[in-house]
């Protein structure tokens, strides 16, 4: 083992400092005249897709990468996989500078995008796998063993000889993941791996990814719109909005950091008018004796005392608001101000 390879094995899988990507976007001008003018002099606008992002990921971690559309998730994944250069900042992935695209780097990496497919459409997946074997120069015996293991894990052994176009979306995604794992990458980047899949397929894919991570301790960085994916897989999440990293830590900590409210569920002894409860906070739900309130955190003790004092309460339950709601709110608040000013209530 060479000195660098040794260093790679020990260090973090991903280390990123001040990573920044500024796109120059051509501004199309309005109307025919504008279009003609655009032929001669083009106007550009600068878009900071990723803005000074820093983080590191250790071997074997599964990290969720969250953010609204256009927040810079995919751009970051593209930089980490070496598809595009950054405008500023540095990154070391598996010990390499990704955009130098060293073969040794590419042999240890896989990127799967849920909306793109790599498999030959009209041929059985087995043929695409054979091509993969040739591209990565995998020894036959190792290839067979890995393929056997993966098809068993994903439960698609019987579909290998069926043309890919005849597979269901979920089966196709499983084949895509198998193709990506055949060369046993140490880092797997997943962009929306469960997009458009039914719940059963989503669950299977999550289970397989978790199991594969456990067996091979492959490091996984994944983006997803399904909080369920993230909840099931990721001990740690990165939240990015408008190109900036706004959170890096355990999933549960998001509520802590971003939610200024608690959800108070009351069961009263008799039917109650929700009106008097409005002074404690927002009435989210009222159904006979059941009242659900959203209460600012710093007022919680005071509000609970007042309610217990003035009403006959049979049961009381204080919860964090659902993670999905918190995240949705974080994303919304990241939008330009004029879009959110009508919904600035705290969660």
């Amino acid at each position, binding site marked *: 083992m060479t000195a660098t390879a040794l260093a790679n094995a020990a260090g973090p899988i991903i280390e990123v400092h001040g990573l920044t990507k500024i796109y120059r976007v051509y501004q199309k001008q309005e109307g025919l005249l504008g279009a003609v003018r655009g032929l001669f002099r083009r106007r550009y606008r600068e878009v900071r897709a990723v803005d000074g992002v820093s983080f590191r990921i250790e071997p074997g971690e599964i990290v969720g990468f969250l953010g609204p559309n256009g927040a810079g998730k995919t751009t970051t994944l593209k930089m980490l996989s*070496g598809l*595009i250069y950054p405008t500023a900042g540095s990154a070391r992935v598996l010990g390499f500078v990704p955009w130098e695209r060293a073969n040794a780097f590419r*042999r240890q990496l896989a990127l799967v995008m849920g909306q*793109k497919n*790599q498999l030959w459409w009209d041929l059985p997946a087995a*043929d695409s796998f054979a091509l993969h074997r040739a*591209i990565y120069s995998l020894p036959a015996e190792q290839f067979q063993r890995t393929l056997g293991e993966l098809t068993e894990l994903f439960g698609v052994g019987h579909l290998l000889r069926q043309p890919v176009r005849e597979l269901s979306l979920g089966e196709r995604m499983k084949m895509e993941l198998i193709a990506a794992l055949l060369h046993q990458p140490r880092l797997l980047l997943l962009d929306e791996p469960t997009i458009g899949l039914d719940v059963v397929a989503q669950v299977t894919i999550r289970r397989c990814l978790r199991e594969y991570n456990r067996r091979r301790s492959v490091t996984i960085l994944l983006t997803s719109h399904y909080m369920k994916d993230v909840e099931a897989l990721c001990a740690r999440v990165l939240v990015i909005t408008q190109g900036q990293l706004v959170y890096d830590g355990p999933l549960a900590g998001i509520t802590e950091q971003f939610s200024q409210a608690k959800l108070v569920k009351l069961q009263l002894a008799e039917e109650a008018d929700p009106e008097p409860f409005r002074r404690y906070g927002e009435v989210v739900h009222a159904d006979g004796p059941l009242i659900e309130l959203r209460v600012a955190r710093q007022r919680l003790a005071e509000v609970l005392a007042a309610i217990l004092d003035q009403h006959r309460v049979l049961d009381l339950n204080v919860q964090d608001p659902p993670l999905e709601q918190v995240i949705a709110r974080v994303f919304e608040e990241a939008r330009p101000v004029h879009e959110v000013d009508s919904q600035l209530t705290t969660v």
Partner: protein
Amino acid sequence: MLRRPARLGALLGEVGKYGRIARIALVERLAYRLDFILSTLLRFLPMLTTILLWLAVYAGAGQLSGGQLGGFSLKEMISYLLLVHISRMFSSMPGLAQGIARDIREGNLKKYLLQPISILPYLLSYRAAHKAAYITMTAVPYALLFFLCRDFFAGWPSAPVLAAYLLSLLLGFLIGFFLEAALGMLGFWFLEVSSFLYVMGTLTFFLSGHMFPFDLLPAVFAQVLKALPFQYLAYFPAAIFLDKVPQEALLSALMTEAVWALALALLASWLYRCGLRRYSAYGG
């Protein structure tokens, strides 16, 4: 010096890799059998009409019995038109430029960036496999056609000429490939290249000598066209077969063809590198 064997091994490994890719591409090609057979058969139709056209031209010029147009007798003309089909069998690259431009536009280029492969050797081995399959499968109908048309030919060329002919066909394959690949790389700079590619395709029909031999044109034009690389796509191999290239000039002519192949290979990979810099900076 110590690293030498390791490097040689790595190089052989690389070549072997593209060999395996070619074998798999062959399997892929054979999945489309019907398309294959139809495209082969349909190629014979335009051939028939061109032959009828030239019969009419020679008849109109009153040169049906042995007279010449531009140094070509009617028999030579028809054998030329049959032979350029063989040339094009090697040098035409349907869909190559279009496919590269589409990969660029639709972001499929990333498979060449993410995986340990290089685009040009990959596409070349892929294409070579398709060509090999195509040529093998069409060998029988073509042999039959040439057998039926055997009276137009003066006979088999000598062994050295035949060898030169085969070499010119192989180099023609490379020239066709790299020319078309270079055109496809324009997709890095322009969103839509299909109309440009269509024009180039039509022009190539003329520039390559597929339409008729350059010798029919005024000497100046013929000289210019013979200085361009397009002639290797159709005219040059046919001219060798018909003994229109003097034997003593064969070697240097083939050398020139090889230099063109190399130059176009360099051009295509240079365009790819420039394009990639742009792609990696702006999009992806």
